[in-house]
C-alpha cells in the first residue's frame, strides 16, 4: 500500500520580493539585491502585503480555514544560500489549514498553506586544482513562496503528479501564477507498507516528482523484501539517474530552534478584509465546468479545456451572449491548438470577444468556409484585428456563386474520368470533384455551394 504526500513551493507572480522592494526578476547575478535580502546587519524585513493576498487567494480557492491571526517564525540553520542564516517562514501557526482541492473525480485534502522567503541560488564549482566552492546569487533571495502541504493521500506517483498539474492550473486560473513561466517545485514523501516515511528533496519538475516517487517505491520494496529495517530520512533526488540518495550527514543535521519572528507584527487578516477578497474571487473551475455544461449544453471536455486559462473561459461566456455556444466552444478548442503551437498565453494575445463574435458570424453567414476559417483564426489569434478586414486581406472570403460556378466548370472539364464515374453511379467520385474545386479555390469555395453547382452541372 503506497502513501505519497507532497510539499509544494509555488512562487506567486508578485513584482517585488516578500520582505523588500527588490524586483523578483533579476538576470545578471546580484543585481536585484539590497541590504534586506542580503541579510546585512541592521536591515529589517517589511512585508509585501500583496504577496500575502496572493497566498490568501490560493488558500481560499482550496477551501482552507483562514486564521485571522498567524505568526511568522525564524527557522535558524546554517547554509551558504541563507543570507541571515535563518529563514523567515511560518511554523506552528500558519495562516491557512485544513483545505480541500476539488478535482474532477476526487477531493484532495490540504494540510496547510503558509508563506515564506526563498533562499539565494547556489552554483557548485570545481576549480582546476580540485578546490571546490559555491557561487551565490542573491537575486532569488527573499522571493515570496507559498508552501502547500498535503497529507500522504496519494496512492500512486501518477496521482500525485496529476494533483500538481491541477494545483498549478488553479493557481494560474485565480491569477496569482503563470503556468508557463512561474516557478513551482515539489518535495515528495513516500512510504510503502512496512517502511517508514521518507522525504525526497531536490526535485525540480513534476515529471521528476513522479520519477522520484516511482524510484522510492521500488527502493523501499527492496528494503522490505530483504527483511531490513527501513529508516525515516531525507533523501536527495538525482535527476540524471532517476534515483534517490541518502542525505543523512550528522554534521549537517539541523536543530531549527523556531521562535516567532520578532521583527514583524502578527500576520493579520480581518474578517471584512477577507470577505472582500472572497467576493472578488472567480467562480471555482470545477463549479464553472458543471455550469457551462448545464447552461451552454457543451461537452464536459470542452468545458474543461476552457478552464486552461481564466481569460479564455471569461471570453467564452461574453461571446455566448451574441453567438452560438456550441459553435463558440468548438472554435475556442481550435484557439487552444493555435496557442499551444505558438507557445503563447491567451491573456497575452489581445484577442477580444468582438474578434471572436465577428469571426463566428462570418462563419455562420458562409462568408468564410471552414477551411478558410481555420486559416483566418490562426492569424487573428496571434495578431488580432477585425475579422472581415483580415479575411479580405488574406483572400479568405468565400467565393461568390459566379466565381464558384466557373471553377466547377473548369473542374468538370479537367476531370472527364471522374465525371464519367459520377454519371455511371459512383457517388464517391463526386467528393473527388468537390475536393478539386476547393483546392483550386484555395479553400475559399463553400462546400455546400460546390456540391449544388456540381449537381446541377452534371445533371445536364
Amino acid at each position: 500500500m503506497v502513501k505519497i504526500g507532497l510539499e509544494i513551493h509555488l512562487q506567486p507572480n508578485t513584482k517585488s520580493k516578500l520582505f523588500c522592494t527588490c524586483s523578483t526578476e533579476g538576470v545578471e547575478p546580484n543585481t536585484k539585491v539590497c541590504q534586506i535580502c542580503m541579510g546585512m546587519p541592521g536591515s529589517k524585513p517589511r512585508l509585501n502585503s500583496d504577496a500575502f493576498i496572493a497566498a490568501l487567494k490560493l488558500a481560499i480557492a482550496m477551501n482552507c480555514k483562514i486564521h485571522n491571526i498567524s505568526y511568522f517564525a525564524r527557522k535558524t540553520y546554517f547554509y551558504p544560500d541563507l543570507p541571515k542564516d535563518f529563514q523567515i517562514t511560518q511554523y506552528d501557526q500558519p495562516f491557512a489549514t485544513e483545505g480541500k482541492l476539488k478535482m474532477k473525480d476526487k477531493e484532495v485534502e490540504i494540510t496547510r498553506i503558509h508563506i515564506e522567503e526563498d533562499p539565494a541560488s547556489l552554483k557548485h564549482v570545481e576549480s582546476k586544482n580540485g578546490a571546490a566552492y559555491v557561487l551565490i546569487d542573491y537575486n532569488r533571495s527573499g522571493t515570496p513562496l507559498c508552501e502547500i502541504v498535503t497529507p500522504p493521500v496519494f496512492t500512486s506517483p501518477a496521482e500525485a503528479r496529476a494533483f500538481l498539474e491541477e494545483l498549478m492550473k488553479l493557481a494560474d486560473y485565480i491569477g496569482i501564477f503563470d503556468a508557463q513561466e512561474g516557478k513551482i517545485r515539489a518535495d515528495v514523501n513516500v512510504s510503502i507498507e512496512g517502511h517508514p516515511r521518507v522525504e525526497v528533496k531536490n526535485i525540480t519538475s513534476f515529471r521528476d516528482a513522479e520519477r522520484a516517487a516511482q524510484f522510492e517505491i521500488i527502493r523501499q520494496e527492496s528494503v522490505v523484501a530483504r527483511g531490513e529495517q527501513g529508516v525515516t530520512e531525507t533523501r536527495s533526488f538525482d535527476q540524471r539517474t532517476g534515483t534517490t540518495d541518502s542525505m543523512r550527514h550528522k554534521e549537517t543535521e539541523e536543530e531549527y530552534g523556531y521562535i516567532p519572528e520578532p521583527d514583524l507584527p502578527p500576520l493579520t487578516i480581518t474578517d471584512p478584509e477577507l470577505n472582500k477578497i472572497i467576493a472578488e474571487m472567480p467562480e471555482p473551475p470545477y463549479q464553472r465546468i458543471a455550469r457551462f455544461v448545464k447552461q451552454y449544453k457543451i461537452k464536459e471536455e470542452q468545458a474543461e479545456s476552457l478552464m486552461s486559462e481564466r481569460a479564455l473561459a471569461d471570453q467564452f461566456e461574453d461571446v455566448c451572449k451574441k453567438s452560438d455556444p456550441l459553435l463558440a466552444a468548438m472554435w475556442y478548442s481550435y484557439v487552444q491548438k493555435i496557442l499551444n503551437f505558438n507557445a503563447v498565453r491567451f491573456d497575452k494575445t489581445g484577442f477580444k470577444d468582438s474578434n471572436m463574435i465577428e469571426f463566428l458570424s462570418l462563419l455562420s453567414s458562409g462568408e468564410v468556409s471552414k477551411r478558410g476559417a481555420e486559416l483566418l483564426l490562426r492569424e487573428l489569434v496571434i495578431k488580432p484585428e477585425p475579422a472581415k478586414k483580415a479575411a479580405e486581406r488574406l483572400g479568405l472570403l468565400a467565393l461568390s456563386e459566379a466565381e464558384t460556378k466557373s471553377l466547377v466548370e473548369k473542374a468538370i472539364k479537367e476531370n472527364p474520368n471522374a465525371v464519367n464515374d459520377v454519371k455511371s453511379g459512383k457517388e464517391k467520385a463526386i467528393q473527388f470533384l468537390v475536393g478539386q474545386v476547393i483546392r483550386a479555390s484555395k479553400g475559399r469555395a463553400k462546400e455546400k455551394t460546390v456540391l449544388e453547382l456540381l449537381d446541377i452541372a452534371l445533371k445536364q
Partner: protein
Amino acid sequence: MNEPIDKLARIARLDLTKEERDKFAKDLDGILKAFDIIAKAPTKGIKPAMHAVPLKQMGRKDVVAESMSRDEALKNTEHKEEGFVKGPPTK
C-alpha cells in the same frame, strides 16, 4: 544542563577549544540553575507576550524600487567571483 556542550556548539557553528568547552559547560550549568526560577512564575492562563506593546499589521503594496548596485552589495567581502559571492563548498 541536559545537552552536551559539543552538540550546542555544533548547532551554533562555533569551534571551541577544550578549555572553552569545559568553561562554557560549567557556566551554562550555573546560569541555567539560576534561571530555573521562572518555572515557579504564576503563568497559568497567561498568553506569551511576543512584544512589549501591541503591534498592528503593517506591510506595503507590491511595488518595485531600485536595487543596490552590485558593486555596493559585494563591497564588504573579498570572497567574490564574476559578480557572485564566493562561499565554502556544500559537498
